[in-house]
């Protein structure tokens, strides 16, 4: 080995170790932040779900599945899980059906207002969920816009129940979460080549047939993504079910909050959170299988 070779090797190792220190310096603050602000809380929550809630309301350090047993043997919590699924599936289905024509329109339009139209469709994302929930309370409430005007023109004698229940919550959440579905569908639909539809048309297929046989199947991945997003966001939403539900809509998210801050049964709150995460994970697993099937 010559001297120059030795020198250059020395320089590369020096360079390497300096790069390693640089890398460490770049990653360390971020990793620390994500650990304190995310990893640790989730871990503590898991650990808490194995503790037990003493009869006097005190916290007992333990490793038991008591909190899960309490949650899963109480018919009330099965109803809560059922409500959560109904809300997620209802919002997912309604938001998908309503977003589909809009997303297709936004992808296809040649209007010079395209940018503004897209911005208008996703702009609600940038207004606070509390403000939009308030807007829905004003529309759906007993003295709200719908009941008020229907009673004034004499269609109704008494207000119809559109708030403080699952129906009103679903209506509001569909609107609040739709922009996510629209965004997911726009990016999914963008990959569909219009020439396939033109080919079907020139080969004599009707508009309806072209849609059913070409456009719809090709758009399914985007539809699934939109549905999954809305489902997942709906079952984890809290502000809208709580305010529009008026304390009478019971889903996992509201019960986690109640147990954590009112009843102060932290193990049960944590166990309910883990159940929510499991529902979340199952849905994502189903989605990945569906996507693999359609794209593979």
């Amino acid at each position: 080995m010559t001297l120059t070779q030795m020198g250059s090797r020395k320089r590369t190792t020096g360079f390497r170790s300096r790069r390693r220190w640089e890398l460490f310096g770049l990653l360390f603050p971020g990793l620390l932040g994500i650990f304190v602000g995310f990893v640790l809380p989730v871990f503590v929550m898991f650990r808490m779900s194995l503790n037990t809630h003493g009869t006097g309301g005190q916290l007992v350090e333990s490793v038991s599945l008591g909190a899960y047993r309490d949650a899963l043997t109480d018919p009330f919590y099965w109803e809560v899980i059922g409500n959560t699924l109904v809300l997620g599936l209802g919002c997912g289905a309604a938001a998908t059906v309503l977003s589909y024509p809009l997303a297709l329109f936004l992808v296809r339009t040649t209007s010079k207002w395209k940018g503004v139209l897209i911005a208008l469709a996703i702009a609600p994302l940038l207004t606070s969920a509390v403000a939009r929930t308030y807007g829905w309370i004003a529309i759906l409430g007993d003295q709200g816009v719908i009941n008020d005007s229907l009673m004034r023109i004499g269609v109704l004698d008494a207000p119809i129940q559109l708030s403080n229940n699952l129906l009103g919550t679903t209506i509001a959440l569909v609107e609040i979460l739709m922009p996510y579905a629209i965004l997911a569908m726009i990016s999914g639909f963008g990959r569909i080549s219009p020439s396939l539809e033109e080919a079907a048309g020139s080969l004599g297929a009707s508009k309806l047939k072209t849609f059913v046989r070409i456009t719809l199947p090709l758009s399914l991945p985007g539809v699934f993504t939109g549905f999954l997003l809305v489902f997942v966001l709906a079952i984890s939403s809290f502000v809208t079910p709580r305010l529009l539900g008026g304390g009478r809509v019971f889903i996992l998210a509201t019960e986690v909050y109640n147990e954590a801050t009112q009843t102060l049964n932290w193990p049960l709150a944590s166990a309910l959170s883990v159940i929510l995460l499991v529902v979340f994970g199952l849905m994502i697993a189903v989605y990945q299988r569906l996507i693999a099937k359609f794209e593979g």
Partner: protein
Amino acid sequence: MWKFFNQVLVTVVYLFLLAPIIAVVLISFNGSAKLSIDLGSPSLQWYASMLMNEGFIEGAKVSFITASIVALVVLCFGVPVALAIARYDFRGRSFVSGLFLSPLLVPTVVLGLGLLLVFQPIALTGTYAGIIIAHFGITVPYVIRTTLMSLTTSDVSCEEAAKVHGANSWETFRRVTLPIISPGLIAGAVMAFIISFDEAVISLFVAGAGRTTLPVEMFRYLQYRSDPGVAALSVILIAISVVIVIVVERAVGLRKVMNS
């Protein structure tokens, strides 16, 4: 016929999407305390009462301070991580990038509960520090995403040229990389600010009896009362969001940020 039907459908969906915002704007000018549109004698009384509500003013102050600090902290902590992911080759790189995006995959109630459990024993609930730490996880993914996007679309050869000419890593970053990726940084910081400013659920958990942000104040107010006052406040907030969005759109292009 088909086309007409389609246009009607699209218009109806747009109306549905914008319905709560339209309702809020109209109700904010109500002449009475009725929670329905009542523009018989429009007035600005609700704006006046909101601007004099001490809870909301205090909440707005807390929200503004925390959102600004969160945006700054997340930039300082997140941009180096994005730089490491884009420009360094190391074991566990995909793990690191996955880790930093994962807070968005956890429901905010779950994260809020975890943070409450960590903060309560060490008396961090209801403090500025508590709220800022709590917002770190849900905002840092956006900064990392927008920065990564700028980094991966920019040309590395400029940075290599700077290094060849003798600049060290810091000089290269300061003089070459930073100017190139600054649109991504601005977009990420603005996203972080808006998300932190609007965030209600996690803040609700860590607020305790102490300091609360504006969305939490609004939430608590709405739990017991609903009058047109909150509509006036919402209009003010929507106006602020619109101004921010237009500024960002002009500066870097909102759609690029949202689609990344």
